[in-house]
């Protein structure tokens, strides 16, 4: 049956002789034989698409050694020409094109390769592939030759050395080595190409996003840093240009006043002048407090608020009692937060001063649940929070202001029972969001660094 090279014989199942040498081709080799020769033999074949493979056995040997590849996978090897190797390739055969490749090596003298592949198809047909002239010789090792589905024209056909029984080889093999059935290599999903590509893509995306965030972070940090610098500069300017000079003014005024006789009209006016200027300086203290970034700490805030409360209650009948966490840290409290909180507390103190008729007022500042809790409680006459009282409309403002900061404000009062107002503001507002947290933690660490050594900055105001 002379067939075109590269075409396989498909025949209805004929005599299925179990003889080992049945179905084998001839000894084939390259046109030239020499010592220490590597001969690469190649053949492709098709399994019809319409059917499945019931069984596929390959039998082969070579003088002296061989490596057998199916579709690029090394499926067998042998180094004894007296024996035949038998391989069960059933699992590896599927409809479509396949490539058999043999890398044979001749130590010396005669050389040949003998092979037979029998594929039993599910529909009863049998496919025979034998070592014959349909094989091609790969003249020079090409990368990936074991998987090439088409042979270039430059690959010559194999040369038949002789049929089975040709000297010096055997007529019947001395032994048959049956190899265990080869299984499809199950590639774990993490080794699969698609998975690795997805993984790489994800990594690349993550890296890109990180770069973006980092640049954003740097940008924000720089912005923040610039803002702080600017605030520090303004604070310094106010101090040097306004506070210092106004203090001088007061001083000169006092000196001038002292030089005047006690009953002088001008002296009284100078007194008023100095008093007014002192009031102005006290106001500037507050402006400086708000502007100076060095004072963005919890401790300073507590200090300032308690000082304010004491001063405003100093000349009243209300005793101011303070309860401040000793461990008030140098943790940062942002400008909007501390300003709004101060305004709310001021409002509360004002209300207490005007309406409560209390004798005692408690101001409590405590670190609580990731936030800052401030309680202002008096033992005054109280009121019903449900009924709006003229003058006390500040309460709505306060509640709104706290809500804007992500916190809350609670008013507990009853007529005759005093009044308790609780404020709570979160100190890390964006902690709820992942990005926010990243951004926050960075922010926080900067603050820690900045405030770790408050002394280093203190004298720059």
């Amino acid at each position, binding site marked *: 049956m002379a067939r075109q090279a590269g075409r396989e014989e498909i025949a209805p199942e004929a005599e299925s002789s179990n003889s080992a040498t049945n179905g084998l081709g001839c000894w084939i080799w390259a046109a030239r034989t020499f010592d220490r020769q590597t001969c690469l033999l190649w053949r492709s074949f098709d399994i019809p698409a319409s059917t499945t493979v019931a069984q596929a056995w390959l039998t082969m040997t070579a003088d002296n050694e061989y490596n057998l590849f199916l579709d690029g996978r090394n499926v067998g090897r042998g180094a004894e020409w007296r024996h035949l190797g038998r391989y069960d390739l059933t699992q590896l055969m599927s409809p479509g094109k396949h490539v058999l490749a043999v890398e044979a090596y001749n130590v010396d003298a005669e050389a040949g390769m003998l092979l037979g592949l029998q594929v039993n198809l599910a529909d009863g047909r049998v496919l025979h592939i034998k070592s014959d002239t349909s094989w091609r010789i790969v003249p020079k090792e090409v990368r990936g030759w074991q998987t090439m589905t088409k042979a270039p024209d430059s690959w010559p056909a194999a040369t038949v050395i002789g049929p089975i029984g040709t000297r010096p080889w055997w007529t019947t093999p001395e032994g048959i080595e049956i190899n265990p059935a080869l299984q499809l290599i199950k590639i774990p999903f993490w080794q699969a190409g698609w998975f690795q590509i997805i993984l790489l893509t994800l990594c690349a995306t993550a890296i890109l996003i990180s770069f973006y965030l980092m640049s954003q972070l740097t940008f924000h940090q720089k912005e923040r840093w610039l803002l702080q610098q600017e605030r520090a500069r303004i604070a310094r300017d106010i*101090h040097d240009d306004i*506070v*210092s000079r106004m*203090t*001088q003014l*007061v*001083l*000169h005024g*006092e*000196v001038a006043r*002292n030089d005047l006789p006690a009953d002088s009209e001008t002296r009284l006016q100078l007194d008023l002048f*100095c008093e007014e*200027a*002192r009031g102005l*300086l*006290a106001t500037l*203290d507050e402006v*400086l*407090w708000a502007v100076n970034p060095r*004072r963005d700490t919890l*401790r*300073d805030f507590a*200090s*300032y608020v*308690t*000082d304010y*409360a*004491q001063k405003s209650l100093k000349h009243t009948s209300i*005793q*101011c*009692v*303070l*309860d*401040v966490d*000793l*461990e008030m840290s140098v943790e940062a409290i942002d400008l909007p937060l501390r300003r709004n909180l101060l305004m709310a507390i001021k409002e509360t103190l004002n209300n207490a001063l005007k309406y409560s008729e209390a004798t005692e007022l408690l*101001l409590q500042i405590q670190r609580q649940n990731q936030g800052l809790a401030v309680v202002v409680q008096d033992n005054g006459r109280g009121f019903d929070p449900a009924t709006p009282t003229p003058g006390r409309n500040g309460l709505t403002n306060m509640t709104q202001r706290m809500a804007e900061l992500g916190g809350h404000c609670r008013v507990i009062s009853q007529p005759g029972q005093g009044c308790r107002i609780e404020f709570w503001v979160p100190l890390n507002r964006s902690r709820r969001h992942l990005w926010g947290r990243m951004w926050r933690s960075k922010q926080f660490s900067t603050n820690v660094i900045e405030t770790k*050594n*408050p*002394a*280093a*900055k*203190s*004298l*720059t*105001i």
Partner: protein
Amino acid sequence: MIPPSVRTRGPLKVALVEDQPKVRESWTRLINSFSDLSCICACATGEEAVRIIPQKLPDVILMDIFLPRMSGIECTARLKVLLPNVQIVILTAMDDQELVFMALEAGADGYLLKRTKPSELRTALLDVLGGGAPMTSQIARRVIESFRQKAKTLGESVHLSVREEQILAHLSQGYSNKQIASKLELSIDTVCSHLKHVYEKLHVSSRTEAAVRYIASKTPP
């Protein structure tokens, strides 16, 4: 109010450290306008103060907190080493308790706002000399905190006594010396002298040369 030892010696000798010439002049005139105060020396820089003041032996030093090069705080620390018995009062334009606390830690015995009325200035100076340096609740809180921290981190040998801590705690709650005295059934003088000891203890750790160097390194020129 004025301790007899001081009164018998005539007017209180005040030294002034202030960098601005006009302000210095005004302060001098203001101090001299009181019959019981006398400004014996006015320095323009911390360096000058450290050099000159020890020879003049004043009773009290008024120290501007912001000085060029050597800061008022560093100068205070250095002078306290040289003159442990001289009272130093920090002058500050702003009411900044954090800065004030640093000055107190460095060895100052009290502080005054520059805008303080002259009459109050006099009382405050006499208070400091009488050992009754006033302490605000904010400072009291910082003092307690500072001693606790030192005890924790440095194992500092200087501790507050129970009574002192009690008084500081009351101060930090906003009670006045008078109220504390009646609450603890002490005389006001006793409360004041306890506070004086607190100040002294606060200064002890600042009096060594090492501490001066530490403070100097903390304060920018």
